[in-house]
C-alpha cells in the first residue's frame, strides 16, 4: 500500500488515528491488541441501548458526511421498539471532491468502522447493517470484507455477539459510479436496485428508509468515532473542539499544497494552521488564492479568510460550511473561472436529472462558462450565471446537489468578480498558465 499521507501515531488530538501506521492494524488480532472491540463489549454487556445513544448525544458528535446533523439526535429518531426489521445503512459512497477521509479510515483501520457500526445497530435496534460503498473503492471494499469475515469468525458478528442475545450482521453493497448516491435517500434508492434519485422528504429514513423500514444512515467517519466515544465517554470527547462543534475530525487537504494528506484536527483550529502548517502551504513562489473548506460543495473562501476557524458555526457565519472536510487549496497560478467551470461540469455530470432546476441549470451554467472561456462572453453571460445560481438555491431543488452548483457560482462570483469580468467582459485571463480543459 502507498505511504500514509496524513495523521497517524499517538498525539493528544489523534482520537481516530492514534494507531494508524501500525503494521497490520487491519487485522482483528492487532486491532484488539490496541484496545479494539472493548467499546463493543462495553456497549453490549454493560450499557442499555438508550444509554449508548445518550453518550453519543453528550459527545456532541455531528455527522461527518457533509450535513453535520447531531448524531445522537439522529439515533434517537429510530423507534427501537417498533415491530419489524430496522436497518443501519453506512454511507461509504465518499465522492465529494477533495474528500478522502473515509477511504483513509477504511484502508487503515476497517475494524474501527465495523465496531462503530455494530454499536450503532445495537443502540437503535437494528439486526442488520448494510455498507453502501462506492464501486471505485476496490481496496477499502476488500479490507472491509476481510474485516467483517474476521469479526464473524470471532463471533462479534453473528447470532450472539459477546454472548448477547442480539443478532448482528453486516453486509456490503457496491455502488457503480454516481456521486448522487452520497445523498441519503438516493443511496436508499440505489440500495433498492433502482436509479439513484433522491426522494421527497417526509417521510424521513428514520420512519421509512431502506426497503420501507426505519433506517439509520450514518457516514463512515461518524460511525468510526463511536468506539472512541464509548471508551472515553461522551463528556470527555466533548472537551475537545468547540462548545457547539466538539471533537476532532479528519480534514483532507489537497490541491496546491506541499504536504497533501488526511489530517485529524481538533475542530476549531484555523484553516491557516491546517493549510499552512499541517499541509505545508503552497509550493515555492506561490500564494494561496482560494480554498474550499469542506469539499467542492462548500462556498469558497479567499486567502484573506485563512484565519477562519474550522468549526461549523464560524463557517456558517461566513456563509460557507464544514461539509465533508475536504479542504481544497488553489494557488494564484490557477484561474478561478476555469476551476468553477470544471466543478459545474462535475455537478452537471452527476445530476440525477429528477428535478428541473438542477437538471437544466447545471448544464446551462456549463454552457455559459464555455462561452465565457471561449472569449464569447459579455454582461449577459454574467447575469445568466447569477440567474442560474439563484435558480438552483433556496428550496428550488430536490436535494443538495442542486444547491452546491449554485454555491460554486455564487461564492466564486462574490469573491472573484474581477476575474470573471476579465474573462467575460475583457476576454482575457490574467492568471498564470493553467491546464487546458479537454
Amino acid at each position, binding site marked *: 500500500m502507498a505511504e500514509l499521507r496524513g495523521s497517524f501515531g499517538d498525539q493528544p488530538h489523534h482520537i481516530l488515528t492514534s494507531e494508524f501506521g501500525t503494521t497490520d492494524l487491519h487485522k482483528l488480532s492487532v486491532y484488539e491488541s490496541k484496545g479494539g472491540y472493548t467499546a463493543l463489549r462495553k456497549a453490549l454487556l454493560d450499557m442499555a441501548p438508550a444509554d449508548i445513544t445518550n453518550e453519543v448525544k453528550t459527545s456532541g458528535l455531528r455527522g461527518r458526511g457533509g450535513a453535520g446533523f447531531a448524531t445522537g439526535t439522529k439515533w434517537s429518531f429510530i423507534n427501537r421498539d417498533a415491530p419489524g426489521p430496522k436497518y443501519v445503512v453506512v454511507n461509504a459512497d465518499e465522492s465529494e471532491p477533495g474528500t478522502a477521509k473515509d477511504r483513509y479510515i477504511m484502508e487503515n483501520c476497517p475494524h474501527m468502522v465495523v465496531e462503530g457500526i455494530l454499536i450503532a445497530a445495537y443502540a437503535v435496534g437494528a439486526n442488520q447493517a448494510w455498507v453502501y460503498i462506492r464501486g471505485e473503492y476496490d481496496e477499502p471494499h476488500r479490507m472491509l470484507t476481510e474485516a467483517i469475515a474476521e469479526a464473524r469468525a470471532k463471533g462479534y458478528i453473528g447470532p450472539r455477539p459477546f454472548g448477547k442475545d442480539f443478532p448482528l450482521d453486516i453486509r456490503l453493497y457496491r455502488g457503480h459510479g*454516481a456521486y448522487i448516491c452520497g445523498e441519503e435517500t438516493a443511496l436508499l434508492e440505489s440500495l433498492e436496485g433502482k*436509479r439513484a*434519485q433522491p*426522494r*421527497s422528504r417526509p417521510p424521513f429514513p428514520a420512519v421509512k428508509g431502506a426497503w420501507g423500514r426505519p433506517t439509520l444512515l450514518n457516514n463512515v467517519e461518524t460511525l468510526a468515532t463511536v468506539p472512541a466515544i464509548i471508551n472515553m465517554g461522551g463528556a470527555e470527547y466533548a472537551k475537545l473542539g468547540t462548545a457547539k462543534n466538539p471533537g476532532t475530525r479528519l480534514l483532507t487537504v489537497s490541491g496546491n499544497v506541499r504536504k497533501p494528506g488526511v489530517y485529524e484536527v481538533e475542530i476549531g483550529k484555523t484553516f491557516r494552521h491546517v493549510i499552512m502548517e499541517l499541509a505545508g502551504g503552497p509550493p515555492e513562489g506561490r500564494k494561496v488564492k482560494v480554498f474550499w473548506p469542506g469539499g467542492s460543495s462548500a462556498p469558497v473562501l479567499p486567502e484573506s479568510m485563512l484565519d477562519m476557524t474550522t468549526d461549523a458555526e464560524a463557517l456558517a457565519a461566513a456563509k460557507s460550511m464544514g461539509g465533508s472536510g475536504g479542504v481544497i487549496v488553489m494557488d494564484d497560478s490557477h484561474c478561478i473561472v476555469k476551476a468553477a467551470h470544471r466543478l459545474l461540469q462535475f455537478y*452537471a*455530470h*452527476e*445530476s*440525477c*436529472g*429528477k*428535478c*428541473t*432546476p438542477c*437538471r*437544466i*441549470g*447545471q*448544464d*446551462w451554467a456549463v*454552457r*455559459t462558462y464555455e*462561452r465565457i472561456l471561449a472569449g464569447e462572453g459579455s454582461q*449577459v453571460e454574467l*447575469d*445568466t450565471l447569477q*440567474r442560474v445560481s*439563484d*435558480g438552483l438555491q*433556496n*428550496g*428550488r*431543488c*430536490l436535494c443538495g446537489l442542486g444547491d452546491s452548483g449554485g454555491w460554486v457560482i455564487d461564492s466564486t462570483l462574490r469573491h472573484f468578480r474581477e476575474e470573471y469580468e476579465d474573462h467575460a467582459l475583457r476576454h482575457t485571463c490574467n492568471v498564470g498558465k493553467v491546464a487546458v480543459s479537454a
Partner: protein
Amino acid sequence: MPDVNLTIDGHRITVPAGTLVVEAAKTVGIEIPVFCYHHKLDPVGACRLCLVEMSPGPPRPQTACTTPVSEGMVVRTQTAMAVQGRADILEFELANHPLDCPVCDKGGECPLQDFTFRHGYPTSRIDGPRLHFKKPIPLSDKIALDRERCVLCYRCTRYYDEIAWEQELTTDERGVQSFIASQFDQPLKSIFSGNIIDLCPVGALTSRVWRFESRPWDMTHTESVCSRCSVGCSVTLWQRRGQLVRVTSHENDDIDEGWICDRGRFDYTDVNDPSRLRTPSINGSRSTWADAIYAVAAGIRGKGAKLGVSLPQDITNEEAFLFRKLLDGPLKGAKVKMHGRTAIPAPKDELMKIKEIDDARVIIVVASDLEDDVPIVDLRVKKAVSKRGAKLIVVYPDGVDFDRHPGTLHIRNAPGKAAEEVRKLASHEWLKNPGGPVGILFGDGHGSEDIADLAAACGELAEKVGGQRMALYRATNERGALASGVAGWDKLDGVEALFSWGPPPTAGVPKSAKFVAAWDHLPRDGYDKAVVLPATTFAERQGSYTNLEGTVQFLRPPIHVAPPLKEGWEVLCELGAALGVALDYEGILPIQRAIGIQPPAPELAPEPVLVGPARP
C-alpha cells in the same frame, strides 16, 4: 381522522386529513401548476413547479404536491418568493424545449403553454444552442415520442411501473442527458401503453393515429362509453367534420379511474373508413330502404330453425329488446349466436362492483387472464395489491402479468380443474381471517372450464369467506343481451338464411346459407349477393350497454346519424312492421322506458380543472 382547517391565499377551507395542498387549493379554484404530480400517481416532487410558501415552515418555497395539509397551515401562492420560484422553474423547462408549438399536436390543450402564459416570465432570457435529439421516435405504431419536448416529469415511466406493473418504458442516462426510451428501442407491446399520451403534459408523447388531424378547438366531443369490451370505460369521443378523430379517457372513478386500454383508444378508425356503407343494397345494387327491408323480411320470414341470426358483441340494450320481440314472434325458432360471449350464464344475484375491488383484502382471480379479457379491471386489481395491500391469488394454467409481483400466489391448475382448486382454497391461511371483503373474479377459461361447476364453487367459497363474486363476461353488452335473452350460443352450421346484425360471424358465413342479409357498416366479401343495410357505429348510435358488473351506461354519440343511415332501433322497428309485428316505438326513450332503464339527466360540465391529462 378529523378534517383539517387551513388557509390558502386568504381562503379558509376545511378538507379531509391527508389531502395534499395542491388538491386543497383546487377546491377554491386556485391553480398551482404541476407537471410531475398526477392525482392517480404517487407524488414525487420532481418537477418543482408547484412551489408555494407555507407556514409554519422553512423560509423557502416548498412543493405543494408532496405536502399534506396540517391544522392551521397558511399557504400563500402569490408571494414574490413563490411566484418567482415557479417562473424560474418554467424558464428552466423551456431552456431546451423546442419552439414546436405550430407543429405540435398538444398545442391548444398544453399545460406547458398555459402555465407559461399564466405563471412564467413574459420574455425569455434563453440564448444559445439547445439540446437536440433525434425525433420523432416511434415508440410503437400508435405512439410517437419527441425527446426534445419532454420535460422529464416521469409521469409515463411512473405510470408504467406503478399502475401497469411493466417497465418496457424506461428512463436512460442521467442528468440533462436523460431521455425516455422503450426497452432497447423495441416497440411498446403493452395494451395499456396509450394512457401515456393522456398523461404527458407536453407534446412529447403523441398519438400517431391522431397525428396532425386537428386542433383541439376544431373538435367537438361527447362523453360516451367504450364499446370494445364488457368493462364499459367512460371515454370522450372527439369529432371533426363528421369524423371520429380521437378517443380519450373520461375519468370514471367507479370503473376505469381515468385509464383506457389500447383497444378502446385506437380501434376506431373504421368509423371514418371511406368505404363505409351508406345506402341499402340488394345483390350489389343500390336500393331504397323500403325495398331492402322488405327483401330482408322476405328472406328470413317463417324459416324457423333454418334461420341463423348473428348478433354483435356490442348490441345495445334497446336493439336486444327489439330482437327479443322478433325472436318471440315472426323469427321464432331461429338459431342465435352472439359474438364474443363467454360461457357464463346470466347472474342470479347481485355481483361485485368494480369499485369494490379497492376494498378487498384478498382477491382471487380464476380462469381468466384479466389483461386480455377485461384490461381495465386488471389495472384495478393491481392498484388494490400495490397501493392498498390486498393479497392476490391466481388460479390459471399459464403465466399472467400478476406474476411480476413477488407476493402473488399463482396456482397453475390443469385445464378443466379450476373448480377443484377453488374448493381447496377454502382452507387457505390467507382466507382464514382476511380482515375484510374477499373478491372472487372468475372467467370461463375461454371454454376450458365447466362453467356451471366453477360458478358454483366460487359461490360456495364466497359464502364461506365473506366474499363477493364478479363474473368476467367479455362481450361488450353480454349482460344486456343475457337480460333480454338474446345472448345466443347456437351453432349456425346448416342454416339456409343468415341475418347478421353487425359484422359476419367469426366462423364465416355458413356455406349452406342461400340467403344472406346484414346490417353492417363496412363492405365484406359476398355482400354483392346479399341484402345489406348500412349500419351506424358506436360513434353515431344511441343506446345503452350493461357492463359486466350490471351498470347500465348510455352512449352519447358525437356524430349525427346522417341520412340515409338510420338508427338500429329504427331499422328493427321497420323490420318488425315488415314481418308483421307491431314495434311501434317513436323514439329511443319509449324503448328504454319499456325496458325499464332511464338515462340520468346530463351533468352540467364542471369548470374545467386546469391541470392534469388532456381534458376538453
